[in-house]
């Protein structure tokens, strides 16, 4: 059996999916988390059930990528039962999508989620009318408490009858449906979609277009507007039957401070700076602790054993890599992921998007671009994926450029681990300042030269929620485990290779060759070039490799402050990591990817060289 979860963004679909399948799907409180289909299996009474989590959408008849994907999924009838998840606190709006799905006539189960929040708002829910009108089982759940989630699979297995709904459309639309049905034999649902320009049959679309134009000239509303109005009205009626509103208890409206220019914008800046500060301060503390422990309990005893030189070189390289990975990357990366997960789950991101809308217009995008840009602080890879929530290719190209320039947590490792630790916290912030200025300049230029048109923002301000510590930790852990199990092995293997190369004198040869150039251009020793090259694999590897090559994690003892500063700036700006390049290729194509790569390499070298000339 195959079930598909479908619903508006942020109705708790991913959370329900998680609870049904136990898979580590990311849950976020902003529109557009699930861009690719998430699949998971579960066993119920010895029957294998596959569950697909479709991306959150507002309509089946929209023009966004997600809407197209879900529409195609339903058209191909790949699923046995659709499970529609709706937010009980915003039922009327959620019913709009539910009605569209019901028109498909697939067996359906309706999940009214967040009944706990609805109760707090004084809403009383009666699932009866929905059940009768749609011919589908209706389950009231509270996914954040795990309430009634266990009823979903049994209900879906029992659902065999197709859903039924007859939305009363405007006379003109009904007439159009009848004539399309007569000529092409299409069903009601396909006719409705054809009138709005969706479908595969060119003849049908052609006829539907003619009729739609006729309707528009008579009613002075587009067919899509009339259809949407009819559906919304029906949804309003259904919602009225389902929900009884008691006097809601008075509640504080956080938005009265969060979305005002003052104090909203200072709060936004405060949150971003505070996030960086906490990561720096707490991260450095943990870093000192872990590095120290490694030094005393692992590295020194290991050297004291006195193994043969080859083994000792390799062993030391491995230990240094572990020390750098666990001691430095781990605290910063983990803290960052926690901070970003909290921001995501609280729903604050949409407020940030709203506040930044105007500023984003200056750099050729709209407020929604704040989401990929903030995500990019964690990791550029998911950030590039979320660039899809911008509607035009122009905006996506600009966002891709800017996202790859945002210092991700790996680059924070470099800034915090090298600059904050050995140069000073002020210098660390100055690296951010340099990067931000460059991002803004790049955006200003790109907004002038990038071709294509610009769409504005239409974004739902999702309900603010207190993030659940368990969910935040789980999400941060899921992201961190990617680091531990993909990056760390890479790091360890890389350091063994490096150790070998060094032992046999290959490194010395390479470094001797590049040293004149790096010294002349950036004032950096030859081995830093090796570190930069490794930084392409993973950004934080630049730092770890530097530590290994320098033979100590105490970089301040081998390089001057200026050298460390320049090395950090170049690494931070230099070329996106391999993983980022891979998603860039998929999202924006090879030409833009190559342009971004060349741009960032030259920018890094140029700015690094400039700082060297100015400060040396």
């Amino acid at each position, binding site marked *: 059996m195959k079930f598909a979860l479908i619903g508006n963004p942020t109705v708790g679909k991913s959370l329900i999916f998680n609870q049904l399948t136990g898979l580590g799907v990311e849950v976020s409180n902003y529109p557009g988390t699930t861009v690719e289909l998430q699949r998971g299996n579960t066993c119920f009474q010895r029957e294998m059930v596959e569950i697909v989590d479709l991306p959150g959408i507002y309509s089946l008849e929209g023009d966004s990528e997600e809407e197209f994907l879900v529409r195609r999924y339903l058209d191909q009838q790949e699923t046995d039962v659709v499970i529609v998840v709706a937010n009980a606190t915003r039922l009327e*709006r959620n019913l709009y999508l539910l009605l569209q799905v019901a028109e498909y006539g697939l067996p359906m189960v309706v999940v009214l989620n967040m009944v706990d929040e609805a109760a707090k708002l004084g809403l009383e829910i009666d699932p009866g009318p929905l059940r009768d009108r749609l011919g589908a089982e209706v389950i009231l759940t509270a996914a954040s408490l795990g309430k009634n989630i266990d009823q979903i699979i049994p209900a879906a297995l029992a659902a065999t009858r197709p859903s039924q709904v007859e939305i009363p459309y405007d006379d003109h639309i009904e007439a159009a449906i009848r004539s399309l049905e007569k000529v092409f034999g299409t069903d009601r649902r396909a006719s409705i979609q054809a009138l709005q320009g969706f479908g595969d049959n060119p003849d049908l679309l052609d006829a539907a277009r003619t009729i739609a134009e006729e309707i528009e000239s008579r009613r002075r509303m587009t067919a*899509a507007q009339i259809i949407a109005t009819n559906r919304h009205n029906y949804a309003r009626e259904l919602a009225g039957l389902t929900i009884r509103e008691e006097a809601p208890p008075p509640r504080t409206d956080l938005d009265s401070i969060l979305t*005002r220019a003052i104090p909203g914008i200072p709060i936004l800046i405060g949150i971003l700076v505070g996030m960086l500060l906490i990561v720096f301060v707490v991260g450095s503390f943990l870093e000192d602790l872990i590095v120290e422990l490694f030094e005393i309990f692992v590295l020194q005893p290991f050297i004291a054993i006195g193994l043969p030189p080859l083994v000792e070189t390799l062993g030391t390289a491995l230990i240094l890599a572990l020390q750098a990975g666990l001691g430095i990357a781990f605290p910063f990366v983990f803290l960052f992921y926690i901070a970003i997960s909290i921001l995501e789950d609280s729903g604050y991101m949409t407020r940030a*998007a709203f506040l930044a809308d105007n500023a984003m217009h200056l750099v050729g995008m709209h407020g929604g671009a704040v989401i990929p840009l903030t995500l990019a602080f964690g990791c550029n890879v998911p950030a590039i994926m979320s660039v899809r929530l911008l509607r035009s290719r122009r905006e996506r190209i600009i966002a891709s450029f800017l996202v790859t320039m945002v210092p991700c947590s790996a680059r924070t490792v470099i800034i915090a681990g090298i600059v904050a630790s050995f140069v000073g916290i002020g210098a660390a912030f100055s690296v951010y300042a340099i990067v931000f200025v460059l991002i803004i300049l790049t955006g200003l230029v790109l907004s002038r030269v990038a071709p294509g048109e610009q769409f504005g923002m239409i974004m739902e301000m999702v309900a603010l929620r207190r993030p659940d510590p368990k969910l935040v930790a789980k999400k941060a852990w899921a992201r961190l485990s990617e680091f531990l199990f993909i990056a760390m092995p890479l790091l360890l293997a890389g350091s063994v290779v490096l150790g070998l190369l060094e032992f046999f004198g290959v490194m010395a040869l390479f470094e001797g060759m590049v040293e004149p150039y790096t010294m002349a251009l950036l004032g950096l020793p030859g081995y830093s070039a090796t570190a930069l090259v490794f930084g392409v694999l993973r950004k934080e590897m630049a730092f770890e490799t530097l530590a290994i090559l320098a033979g100590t994690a105490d970089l301040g003892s081998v390089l001057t402050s200026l050298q460390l500063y320049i090395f950090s700036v170049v690494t931070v700006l230099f070329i996106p990591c391999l993983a980022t390049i891979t998603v860039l290729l998929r999202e924006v194509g090879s030409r833009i990817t190559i342009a971004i790569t060349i741009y960032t390499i030259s920018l890094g070298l140029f700015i690094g060289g400039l700082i060297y000339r100015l400060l040396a």
Partner: protein
Amino acid sequence: MLSSTFEDYLEAVLMITENGENSATPQEVAAATGAKEADVGATIASLVEEGYLEQAPDGTLQLTEKGKAVAAKVARKHRVLQCFLTEVLGVEESAASQEACALEHGISDETIDRLSSYMDGGACPPPGRRARCRWGRDAHTLLDCKEGDTVRVAAIQRPRRNRRLLDLGILPGEVVQIRRKLPNFSVVVRVKGCDIGISPEIAASIIVESCPPAVAG
């Protein structure tokens, strides 16, 4: 009292400059009024002389405050008349526009006010009927509203471009509340219990009419 030609010109400049935000060229004015370019030059010169228009050295035109006041008044008359002709009398739209053009210069301010309130009072265009005139613009958009206002959506320009507005329930006839309006004109509206953040350029394409508080509920 200005001649009807002068009023037509000012109205045309108002529309071309999008309520005085941009500037217009004499060619655009000629195209909008359908006059010959030679005549246009002379008329513009006298309008500049009388202080209704300002002409920049590069030839582009802008309304002065005085010119804007006249133009806005004429544009309103045109709108009300066209609305009356199409919605109440059922005259075909293009014909109504032409006739409104002729009538707008002779009708008194008081008659227009009465006509307008007569239409608001009962024969008001049903929601969704675009109370548009030949320039395709209406004075009230979401951007003209204040924070806390409750208004009814009358029409949405370029409906095909912003499909998501439809899906979120922002469509003609819907009552929405302006929850927030930033100094930079980004707005948050509450519709169907959900708050939707909207960019200024999209808010400017949503035409609204005020609605009595009783309906707003």
